[in-house]
Each structure stands twice: as structure tokens, then as C-alpha cells.
């Protein structure tokens, strides 16, 4: 930690780039015997929008509930802007949440929903109407101020939920899969809108999603969560090119995925036996180790004569999928293993389904992970 002395909140507000505005430190949460969040560390800088990406059930919502105070942590510490909020109830944390189902109050109309937080905080009644108007204008919902929320479309409800969460000027905004109920087109529009809105406000925010494309397009940093832990926390390029675990390799982007056994281990080189044959690549495993081999598809060439230093496999082609700007070539899968190459439009396609082709890639593009302990 850089700051060992206590810094007053006002000083931190000056924003001299304190590295962790939100800091979740070794937080755990279990329901009975189920450990949903496991000694998790997570930090967000001031003004940053970060995505929390993970499959359904990995503990994303639970982590948001821990940060917002809707549930208490079993262990660990949560700090926002230098303020330890671990023991505070939700209504004293000043952390706003946009819920997955929006959770708009059905007995209140649009502007009353937005005004709710201001009234709850005892803001002077004279200041409320203008604050509500501004918030609604921000999400382009001014024309709907008097409407009952039940009469709004999903996208409109979403906007009201965002306005309601922002109008109270929270220290931190948490969004739990806010666009998951919207159709694709609207979702993309909303992503762009939200991103620029949060940027204008300088809001620090955590955006939860199970959709990797959404995570990558919304934020500059993505925390990939699995089984109650954060497996990797990095920018999209790093996540894609250097996944920290087999889980990240599979969850983020398309990848070749081959289980294998190390048959020979040399000075920084290993040979791995896979269901498509043996391959040699840089690596530091001992002979006999079970490994998982991954390669990002655009690194793989198909049907080309491999140059020196390339790793090569040959496999029967199952399918050639033309996707417009790119083409995917799938080898016939064997068990859980798959081999897939992505060719760009300019590449010459020299293979067809049913033939056997050579798949080759620069040896250093090979990603290696110890195989999961479970069979």
C-alpha cells in the first residue's frame, strides 16, 4: 500500500491518482457450506469503469451485494474513497445499484422514482424537482416524467433506473447485468450511452455482465470471475492474448483447446501428445505432466507450408464457416478437444471440409496451462 497514513476523504477527492478508490480486500461470503465469494481482492480507480465478467452463478451479484451492503461480508474489508464501509448498512454507504430487473417502484411514477433517493436522504424539497429534471434529461427521459413506470419499455425502465441511481450522486455505481433483458441492437446503443454518461459524470462504476463482448466493449479493464474468485483482471488485449488461466482462455474469445500429456521436456521446450498428434512448443512442464494447450484462432494458418519455428498439427477439417470479414476453419473435434483457425478475408482458403489440413502457428503463440485436477 502506498498510503500508510490516513488521508482525509476531502484530500482524496482532489484525485491525485490514488490507485484504489474502491478496494475490496480479502472478502469472503458463504451461504451455509457454499462458499460464494472466496478471499477476493478487487480494486477500481477513481472515475474508472470496470467490468466484472463471469458465467452465471460465479458470484457476481453476490460481490455487488457485498459492496453495496445488502449483505454482510464474513471476512475482509471494503473501502470506498478512503472510507471503510465494511460494517455500514446499505443506506449509509452512498453506493448506488442498478438492479438486473431494474427494481423500479411500481407505485411511483418516473419522476417520483428518481426523487426517491433524494427524499430518503432528506434533501430540501425545493431542490428536488430541478435535480430530478436534470437526471431525467441526462438519460433523455424528460418527456416521460409523469408516466407510471409500468407503461415503459425495457430500455426506458433501464434509463430511469440509471437516472435514479445517479441523481443521489453516489461515490460508486454498481450495475448488475443492466442490459441483459434488452435486445441486441438496443443493448449496443445503451452500452455506448452509458459509457459516455459515466465518463461525463466522472463516475466510478462496476459493470457486471456474463457477456464477454459486452464486457470488452464497455470498459478498459475487465475482471474475469469464476467460482467466487477473480481469475484475471486486465485490459481486453491482455485477457485475449495472455489469458491467466484455462478458464479465461475458454471464457474470453474463441480458442483452440487441447488436453495433452508432456512426453518430452527440454531446455524451455516441451513436446505434448494431443488427440491430433504431437506438438512442440516453448514451456516449462515436467515429463508426464497433464497440460491444456490453447491457441488463439487468428494465429493459426491452415494449409500453408509451415516455416521454421512453427508448431504444426494436421487434422481433418470438419467445417469451413465464412463469416463475411473472416472465415473459421474447424477441425473434427475429438472429445472435448477442438482446433479452430480464423482466416481473414485476404487469406487464400486452401482447405475444404472433409480433407485433412495442416494447422500451424508460431510456437510462441502456444498457451499452456496445467490441466484441471478434476478428471
Amino acid at each position, binding site marked *: 500500500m502506498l498510503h500508510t497514513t490516513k488521508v482525509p476523504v476531502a484530500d482524496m477527492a482532489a484525485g491525485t491518482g490514488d490507485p484504489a478508490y474502491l478496494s475490496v480486500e480479502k472478502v469472503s461470503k458463504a451461504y451455509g457450506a457454499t462458499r460464494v465469494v472466496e478471499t477476493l481482492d478487487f480494486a477500481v480507480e477513481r472515475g474508472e469503469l470496470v467490468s466484472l465478467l463471469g458465467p452465471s452463478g460465479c458470484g457476481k451479484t453476490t460481490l455487488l451485494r457485498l459492496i453495496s451492503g*445488502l449483505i454482510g461480508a464474513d471476512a475482509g474489508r471494503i473501502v470506498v474513497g478512503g472510507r471503510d464501509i465494511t460494517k455500514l448498512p446499505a443506506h449509509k454507504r452512498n453506493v448506488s445499484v442498478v438492479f438486473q*430487473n431494474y*427494481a423500479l417502484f411500481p407505485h411511483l411514477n418516473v419522476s417520483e422514482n428518481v426523487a426517491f433517493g433524494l*427524499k430518503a436522504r432528506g434533501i430540501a424539497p425545493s431542490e428536488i424537482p430541478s435535480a430530478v429534471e436534470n437526471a431525467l434529461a441526462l438519460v433523455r427521459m424528460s418527456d416521460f416524467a409523469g408516466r407510471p413506470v409500468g407503461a415503459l419499455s425495457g430500455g426506458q425502465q433501464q434509463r430511469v433506473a440509471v437516472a435514479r441511481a445517479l441523481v443521489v450522486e453516489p461515490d460508486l455505481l454498481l450495475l448488475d447485468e443492466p442490459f441483459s433483458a434488452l435486445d441486441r441492437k438496443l443493448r449496443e446503443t445503451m452500452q455506448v450511452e452509458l459509457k459516455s454518461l459515466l465518463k461525463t459524470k466522472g463516475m466510478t462504476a462496476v459493470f457486471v455482465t456474463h457477456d464477454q463482448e459486452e464486457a470488452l466493449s464497455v470498459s478498459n479493464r475487465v475482471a474475469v470471475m469464476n467460482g467466487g474468485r477473480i481469475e484475471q483482471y486486465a485490459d481486453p488485449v491482455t485477457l485475449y492474448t495472455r489469458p491467466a488461466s484455462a478458464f479465461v482462455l475458454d471464457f474470453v474469445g474463441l480458442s483452440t483447446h487441447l488436453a495433452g500429456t508432456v512426453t518430452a521436456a527440454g531446455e524451455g521446450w516441451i513436446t505434448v501428445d494431443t488427440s491430433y498428434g504431437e506438438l512442440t512448443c516453448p514451456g516449462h512442464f515436467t515429463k508426464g505432466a497433464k497440460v491444456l494447450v490453447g491457441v488463439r484462432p487468428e494465429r493459426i494458418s491452415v494449409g500453408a507450408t509451415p516455416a521454421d519455428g512453427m508448431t504444426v498439427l494436421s487434422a481433418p477439417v470438419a467445417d469451413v464457416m465464412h463469416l463475411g470479414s473472416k472465415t473459421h476453419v474447424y477441425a473434427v473435434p475429438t472429445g472435448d478437444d477442438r482446433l479452430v483457425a480464423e482466416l481473414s478475408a485476404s487469406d487464400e482458403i486452401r482447405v475444404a471440409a472433409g480433407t485433412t489440413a495442416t494447422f500451424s502457428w508460431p510456437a510462441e503463440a502456444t498457451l499452456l496451462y496445467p490441466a484441471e485436477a478434476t478428471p
Partner: protein
Amino acid sequence: MSAATEAAQAPPEMRWRVDPFVLLAAPGLLYLAILFALPLALLLLQSFRDADGHFSIAGYIEFFSDPINLAVTWRTFRVAALSTLLCLVLAYPTAFALARARGFVQSFILVAMILPLSVGVIVKAFSWSIVLRSDGIVNSALVFLGIVDQPIRLLFTETALIVGSANVFLPFMVLPIYAVVRQIDPSLSAAAATLGAGPFFRFFRVIVPLTLPGVIAGVAFVFSLAISMYVIPSLIVGERHATLSMLIARSYLFFRDAQLGSTISAILLLIAIAVVLGSSLLLRRFEGTRV
């Protein structure tokens, strides 16, 4: 041109249309019309007729000129209102407990609510008299503990009537409130909390308004039942604290005065309608202002 062909030639949107689903309610409505609305209308008509069948409001004049009748009317209203209030106070938290409970506990509370309905009111009222009479369990306990020197009067008091009737009507308050409470999305309270609302604010500005429809239904049920109850007051308080229903019965059965009987019935009905409509308007108004 006949009316029928005219109707047939009218543009379709002019034709009187019946939503087919409304027809599903037809048997029920017909049943109510024949066995409820029609006899009631006849009854009201009768309240404006003297013994010779001429129009007269003598029944009303007679009723309101007797201060005892006014006292009975006021007592009937008071008992019904307090009984409804007591039900509401007991039922509101019970409905939340019921909605929150799971599995066995929930079944247990539900059965505990509904089973007593199957024990007839008469049986219940008699069993109370065993508990409440001067040599009953409660008085014995009070005397034994030295809280009172002499057995006190529990039976034949208005309090006993209110407490007893609330006991009978409790399920009619719990069930409609429970039905709305279980529909309330738990994330609404969570959302309110993250917006800075403490427990009190959340309860009064989110939970209470959302339970209002159930409260209105419960109040309407219980008040209607309580203002027209006959068996319970007959058995618990007897003639000492007569209610309107008892007056009605007496007019018909003892005095054979159908006009007076139907007059009191009309008054009773009017109070019930006024309170049920009034309370629902009041509550909706409260909801509408959204303070």
C-alpha cells in the same frame, strides 16, 4: 327499418361487443342477482312500505326517534370498527411472517389461520364462555395470582365481543394481505436501501403503499362481516349489548314488524357500504398523494 337490421348495418366498431371472458363471470353474476340483489331490493322496497302496502318512511322515523336504537347503531359501528382495527394490527405482521416463512412453518401458520374457520362460530363462542366466565380459566388464574380479589366480568362486555369477533375474522384480514405481500419484489426494498432509505423510510414509503390493495380488501371483508355479525354477539354479550343484527332479528321474529326489520337492514347495509367504499377511497387517496 327495424332496430335489428339497423344494428346489423352499423359499422362494426359501433356494435355492442362482449368480451368473451366476461361471459365466464355470467353464472356467478346471475347467481348473485337472483339470490342477493333481488331479495335485497325487495327488502329495501319493503322498508318504505307500511303494513297496508302504502309508501311511508315511518319505519325510519320510528327507528331514529328512539335513542336506544341510535345507541345500538353507534355500538354496532364502534364494535365493527375496533374489531377490524384489531384484526389489521394482528394480521399485518402475521401476513409478513407467513410470506417470509418456508416449508413446514408456512404450512403450519396457514393451517393455524384457516383451520379455526372449520370450527363453527357457535362452538367457538361457547368455548370462549368457558374460558371467560366468572369461574372460567382466566378469572381463576387472575384470582390465583392475586391480580384481582374478585372474579371480574369478562363475558358480556364489549371488549370480549371485539376480541372474540377479531379472532373469528382474523383469517379474512391475513389472507388478502399475505397475497399482496408475497407478490412484493424483494429487490424493491434493496433498491430503496441503496438509495439511502433507512428501515423506517423503506417500510412506510415502499412496503406499506404496496400492501394497500391487500389492506383495503381485508378491511372490506372484515368490516362487512363484523358489522353484520349476529351469532357472536348473541352468545358473547347477549341482549345486554345488542347490535343492529340482533335488532333486525328481534323485529322480524318477535315483533313481526317487517318494515322495522327491513329499515334496520337498510341502515346496516348503508353503513357497511359507506365504510368499505370510504376506506378504500381514503387509502387510495393516501397512496395517490405519494407523500
